[in-house]
């Protein structure tokens, strides 16, 4: 057990080191810009994964929390001179409170009904972003959001933004790994497998589901806030149902219940337009097919498939190591 823990820590540090060193190899490359968005999407995917992958509760409206974070940040900073970074916490706090309140009635629902309720919530929020033109700028968007700054350091280029976003992303990753390896993480997975049995063992499923929903929303809001300041422009189209589905696709493809899977899925989907450019308009079809095929034939996602392959290889070699590498 101790070795598993140590190995996990090692994996995380190797990953973190790779992330932090990457820009030195990508200087001046547009990939650095793509990786900024990979970071933001990784954060979002992890947030959704905590809810869906661990606790087994689906959400088709997560883009709404992302949007709320972005709009709270964007509207306030484009109007008032607010202390930088304070706004991120403010956005997270507001969204957290809202998620906590609506979490109680929403998470009473299960399965398809839960999916529908979260979808409805997402659409309502999208309509609000779209229609409150005086605040959000409506469909043509909100521009003139300032970049974040610390003293004389302004986060207005890819290099700076990369570190800004990835410091947050790595923190979210580490905290999620910690969480998944704790009594709370286990309780969430227990709810996923059998809610009744979990409750019989004293797990307060109702509260815990609302709590993780809130945490997930807060992570999304932080991502949204960062997104607003990186882009300096936001429009409702980025926070609609399509994006909620895109997030879902990320974790289905990457791996449900896996932090690194979230990263993998986010990276693939963020770069997908690049990879599919050859196919032009075909990408939407491929995207739909991928969702179906992955769910049918690789329910553990790519990370699950890779783990299975590694385990198989190890077995072949004869090490036969027992691992339960679920981060």
């Amino acid at each position, binding site marked *: 057990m101790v070795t598993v823990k140590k190995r996990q820590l090692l994996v995380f540090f190797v990953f973190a080191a790779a992330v932090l060193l990457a820009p030195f190899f990508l200087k001046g490359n*547009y990939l650095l810009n793509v990786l900024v*968005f990979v970071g933001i999407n990784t954060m979002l995917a992890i947030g959704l994964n905590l809810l869906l992958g661990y606790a087994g509760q689906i959400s088709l409206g997560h883009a709404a929390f992302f949007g709320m974070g972005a709009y709270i940040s964007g509207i306030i900073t484009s109007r008032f001179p607010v202390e930088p970074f304070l706004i991120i916490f403010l956005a997270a706090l507001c969204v957290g409170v809202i998620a906590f309140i609506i979490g109680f009635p929403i998470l009473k629902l299960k399965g398809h009904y839960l999916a529908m309720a979260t979808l409805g919530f997402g659409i309502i929020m999208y309509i609000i972003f779209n*229609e409150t033109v005086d605040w959000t700028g409506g*469909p*043509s968007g909100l521009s003139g959001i300032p970049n974040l700054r610390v003293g004389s350091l302004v986060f207005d280029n890819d290099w700076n933004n990369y570190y800004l976003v990835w410091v947050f992303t790595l923190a979210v990753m580490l905290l999620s790994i910690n969480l998944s390896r704790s009594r709370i993480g286990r309780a969430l997975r227990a709810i996923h497998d059998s809610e009744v049995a979990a409750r019989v063992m004293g797990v307060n499923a109702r509260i815990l589901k609302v709590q993780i929903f809130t945490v997930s929303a807060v992570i999304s809001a932080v991502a949204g806030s960062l997104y607003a300041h990186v882009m300096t*422009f936001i429009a409702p189209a980025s926070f609609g149902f399509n994006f909620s589905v895109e997030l879902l696709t990320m974790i289905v493809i990457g791996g449900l219940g896996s932090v690194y899977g979230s990263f993998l899925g986010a990276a693939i989907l*963020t770069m997908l*337009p*690049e990879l599919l*450019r050859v196919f032009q308009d075909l990408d939407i079809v491929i995207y739909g097919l991928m969702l179906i095929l992955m769910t049918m034939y690789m329910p553990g996602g790519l990370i699950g498939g890779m783990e299975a392959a590694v385990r198989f290889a190890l077995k072949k070699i004869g090490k036969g190591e027992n691992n339960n590498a679920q981060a």
Partner: protein
Amino acid sequence: MSRNIFRMILVLFFSFLMAGAVFAAPPVKIGALFSVTGPASPLGEPERNTAEMMVAEINKAGGINGRQLELIVYDTQGDATKAVQAVNKLIKDDKVVAIIGPSTTGDSMAIIPVVEKAAIPLISCAAGIKITDPVKKWVFKTAQNDVLAVMRIYKNLQKQKISRVAILTVSDGFGSSGREQLKLKAKEFGISIISDETYGPKDTDMTVQLTKIRNSNAQAVICWGTNPGPAIVARNAQQLGIKIPLYMSHGVSSRKFIDLAGDSAGGIMLPSGKVIVADQLPNSDPQKKALMSYVNKYRARYKVEGDHFGGHAWDAVMLLKNAMEKGGFAPAAIRDQLEKTKKFAGIGGTFNFSPQDHAGLNIDAFVLVKVEKGDWKLIK
């Protein structure tokens, strides 16, 4: 003074380079961002088609100053995030010298900070007035500002002594921008908006809004949207027996609108770029030549009618071509030449750029047309 000398050296240098190595010179890369898929695809698709057609044509004619062009098109899907990623790739990876598009105001606003910083000229094909107002150093646009369309309608209303109007706008970027301008300019023309309704881009029935308008004592209705919404509005208005004049925006100035609205389109008026009535223009119209050539070529290549969205891309490519012919292929030179463009008769109108005006068009860019017997009729 020294700048001019520098520029001359640059120009000389480039011409020398090209004269010496016509065949060896790599093609000049131009980036294009259009929302080919997604909700704004009715705009993005003809734009992409037109741009590809024009570049192919230029290359066939020997390129610009002997150099071939290479058009790199990315799809923004009408999503700001994807637009920003794509523009970064165009600039940093493909190393384009200029960019045309995007199709929507939102996408344009999203990428403006990026092109401004990278110092790459952008010719947007979106209509939102805020793209070039205030003027941004590197940003130009070819789509007529929607305020010009608003003024064209209001002028006509004034002429008919109509002062009470109802507006019905779609709640997307196009409609909300139109709504803003309609409200802003009303007073100037002595018009009061007595009913202000909206509908969603995916709505399939507008009877309720029109019933409200019918009961509001308005003398005319102005509907602002892109297909298919306004066609449904036209049909619903006919169903409800609304007799007051119905104005549409330039968002539906294509053959498609008449097809969709059927006989309910009769009598509807709208401001439009001249492209749909190209053959009805007098030969004296400076744009006529360009318009006819565009209409014919587009029909020959794609088997459908070209519309004014494609026209925005036509203008963007041609403006670039002119600028590059005069100033070479350096981004800064292209920008400077663009800003000097005068009396360029394109599809969207006659462009006159200046350091104070990067939109370059005036109200003459629009004509008012009316649907008569299933076709567009120019109103003089």
